[in-house]
């Protein structure tokens, strides 16, 4: 008897427990409220802040040196960063006014230390062809020597003479002759 009572009690308890479980689940399903409309407003603020970075990173600021290196030799020579110098009639020594020019040129060459230059010696028409070609070479050479004395390696300098065959000014007067007696610079390697 006792056993029959215990079984029936246990049965009842299990039943009751099961039936109570079902009842609770149903209640919970009904209760949660729909999400409030306020949540939609917040993402709008966040997207405004994000726009800045990706495009800007691809184009970095160029340094002066990088801009220089990006140019072709023709473009650089067109800008003539190295000023030409002039000489006295029949002479090839470096004049005082030319020394300042060469100092500035040397500073520039120190800044761009991969540059290799060609110094062209030129003469005016009042010298003979043969002697002038030699004189033009002397002018280029004394320009080279002066730049070397300012610390520019001679490995970076080549010389050539055009004599009187490439005048800057084709006129035949003192002004044009002075213009034509010159050493000018050509950048041949960077």
């Amino acid at each position, binding site marked *: 008897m006792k056993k029959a009572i215990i079984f029936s009690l246990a049965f009842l308890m299990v039943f009751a427990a099961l039936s109570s479980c079902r009842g609770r689940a149903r209640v919970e399903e009904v209760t949660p409220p729909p999400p409030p409309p306020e949540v939609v407003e917040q993402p709008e603020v966040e997207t405004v802040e994000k726009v800045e970075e990706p495009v800007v990173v691809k184009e970095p600021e160029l340094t002066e040196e990088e801009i220089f290196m990006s140019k072709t030799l023709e473009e650089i020579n067109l800008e003539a960063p190295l000023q030409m110098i002039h000489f006295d009639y029949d002479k090839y020594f470096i004049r005082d006014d030319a020394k300042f020019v060469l100092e500035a040129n040397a500073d520039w060459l120190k800044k761009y230390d991969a540059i290799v230059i060609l110094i062209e010696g030129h003469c005016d028409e009042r010298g003979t062809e043969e002697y002038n070609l030699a004189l033009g070479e*002397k002018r280029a050479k004394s320009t080279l020597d002066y730049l070397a004395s300012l610390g520019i390696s001679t490995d970076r300098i080549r010389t050539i003479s055009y*004599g009187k065959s490439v005048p800057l000014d084709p006129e035949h007067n003192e002004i044009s002759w002075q213009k034509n007696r010159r050493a000018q610079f050509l950048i041949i390697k960077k």
Partner: protein
Amino acid sequence: MKIKWILLGGIIIFLAVLILHPQQEVVISIKEGMPAIPLALPDFMVRSSSPETKALAQELHKIISDDLKYSRVFQLLPKSYYSYIRPLNPEEIFFKDWESIQANILFVGEVQESDGKKILFEGKIYDVKAGRLIFGKRYQSEKVLLRLVAHKMADEIMKIYGERELFTSKIVFISNRDGNDELYMMDYDGHNQTRVTFNKKQDYMPAWSADGKKIAYTSYRNNRAGLYILNPFKGEITEVVSKGTNFAPTFSPDGKKLAFCSTMEEGNPEIYVATSEGKKIKRLTFNKAIDTAPSWSPTSREIAFTSDRGGTPQIYIMDAEGSNIRRISFGGNYHDAPAWSPAGGRIAYVSRVDQIFDIYALNLRTEQVVKLTESNARNETPSWSPDGRHLVFSSNITGTIQLYTIDYDGSNLRRLTSKGESKLPDWSR
């Protein structure tokens, strides 16, 4: 007594000076050029009735006549003299007739047309006094080569008298007529001006090889002034050197050597010598001053050149090995571009006085200097003809730089070019 003798001696010396002075000039004029040989050049015979052949014969006659007049070796008899004697009959020449009008030489030419396009030209040279044929030659050529035929014939006449070929010689020069400085060549009289280089580079200072087959010259390529040797008839170019500035090439008359100026070592203009192929380059001058513009002596044993080792550009001579240097120009402070005459006795050069350049010739035996050009201009780069009687040079007398020839004594100035500007001539040997 003593005073008498002294007086007498003085008078004798005085008279001697008076007598010797004009005599000296006579001696010089004989040295400068023997008296021209009188030559008769009657119209050429034409074995054809075609007017074209007759015109060609006249043209041939004119060219040969111009050549011989230019030579200074021959003196053409005036045409009017021929009217005093019987007309020329090639089959039977009356030499007494020709002797009577003072002809030493008689040239008889005959022109024939062969198969329409070609001409046949025969020339015979007679010794009038001996009444015999000295030389005869026949040429056949295309009509377009008429000038060459005439020049070849005239050169044969020169050769009989031991002279070098002059009329078939060529002058190479630089001109900018087609845009930039390129090499050109032409006949001695300015005809047949032909472009030789087509490189669009600046070409400079050409010089003929001794055999007239090659030209050495400077060309500016890749920012270098290299020295090159060109065979213009084959179109072959070889590089001699491209380090430094290389210029003023000149081949030795014996055909073995090439001298030039270069800055290849220390950047200073020095004179170098190489084989005529431009190999085995050897330095000749060692001086901090400018050494440039070499010119060989006719024996190829000495070289004249310009140097400013004394402070101003002057002309010096050294042995072909670079030793025994001595100065030969005096009395001025700017001398350049020496050109040693193939005949040996003279060096022509440019002298600058008050910014005017004139060409002078120094007689090496008498040390007498003759001024050849007289103009308020820049006369430059003299180069001798193969026989040493004429010079070609450049001048800006008309405003532009053009080429001219002049004789060794300053006579017979002739203009050769007119297109663009032309300069730096070199006359083949």
